[in-house]
């Protein structure tokens, strides 16, 4: 069976038809499409926050006590790391846009290192919690254990949401390495940088999710039970 080439046709505002040579220059379309993807991320994490809020209304005191037992120092360090990484990623895009490709690549590498640091710290945190018997389907989290049910719900959501967030960080590292390869191959340039723009947006949404994950899990118990809701 032969495959006949059928050109894609775009029509301009005056009704003239043109054969499409490529969509690489459709900067706004590329950005808009990525924003649509990010809204699906908001919906996914929004649903998880809804579940969290529901459980919280059922077991407010257990949630505050469980939150107070998390390591706020490590959580805070990770918050600052993500914050600085958002800056380095933003600066990498800015440098790309003004033509400083080498500077842009350096900033992407800085972002990758910060992302790895985030994961390492998160790993230490999870390890400490595991050693205390707090992990999904393990020790204190098992149905027969004596831990308060509200705390089980809290920690179950904590591992689920920080785990999915961590998975997004890993994907982000992969995307940044791919971006570096595309820059080296000359496929992403100061004139065609939509891929860079969208990966920077992805990194911002990962940061944005943490902006809400951190206070909800680590800080609501900082004032003790008297802190209330």
């Amino acid at each position, binding site marked *: 069976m032969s495959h006949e080439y059928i050109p894609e046709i775009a029509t301009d505002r005056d009704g003239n038809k043109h054969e499409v040579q490529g969509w690489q220059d459709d900067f706004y379309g590329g950005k808009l499409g990525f924003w649509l993807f990010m809204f699906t991320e*908001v919906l996914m994490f929004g649903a998880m926050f809804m579940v969290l809020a529901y459980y919280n209304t059922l077991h407010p005191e257990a949630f505050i006590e469980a939150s107070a037992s998390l390591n706020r120092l490590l959580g805070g360090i990770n918050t600052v790391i993500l914050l600085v990484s958002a800056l380095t990623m933003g600066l990498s895009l800015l440098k790309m846009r003004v033509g400083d490709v080498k500077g842009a690549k350096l900033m992407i590498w800085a972002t990758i290192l910060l992302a790895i640091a985030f994961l390492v710290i998160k790993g230490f*945190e999870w390890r400490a919690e595991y050693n*205390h018997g707090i992990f999904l389907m393990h020790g204190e989290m098992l149905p027969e254990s004596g831990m308060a049910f509200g705390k089980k719900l809290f920690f179950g959501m904590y591992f689920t949401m920080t785990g999915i967030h961590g998975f997004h960080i890993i994907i982000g590292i992969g995307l940044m390495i791919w971006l570096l390869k595309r820059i080296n191959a000359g496929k992403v340039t100061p004139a065609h940088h939509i891929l860079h723009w969208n990966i920077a947006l992805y990194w911002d949404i990962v940061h944005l999710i943490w902006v809400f994950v951190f206070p909800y899990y680590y800080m*609501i118990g900082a004032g003790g039970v008297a802190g209330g809701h």
Partner: protein
Amino acid sequence: MDTNNTTIDYKKERVAYYKVLVGLLLLTAVTFIQPHLFMTESTFLAQMTIAVIKAWLIIMYYMHLKGDSLIGVMGIFSLVIVATFMVIVIGFDVANFQFGAESHITGPASAGVEHATPVQH
């Protein structure tokens, strides 16, 4: 609207990035001191308010939504949809959950140390 052809004022944009960074760092510091300093009776509300301000800074400046009305309207529309469902689910459905007594989740907390002293992990 940003396009590939937009003229970029590198210094101005870089300064804006650093200003936002300082703002976010200050707000993070406020996050830590808030439970001991202000709104101590409503930590959750205070923390979420700070988070919303941080999110606004990130969306407007790091995600370049400032001046991009189309995506901005889309964002607000999506958030309104999520908020509406949240109100319906939490405010009406959950508040009037008719199987609360039989549900494992909504039932009374199981035996255990419900109010034990928190232990740092």
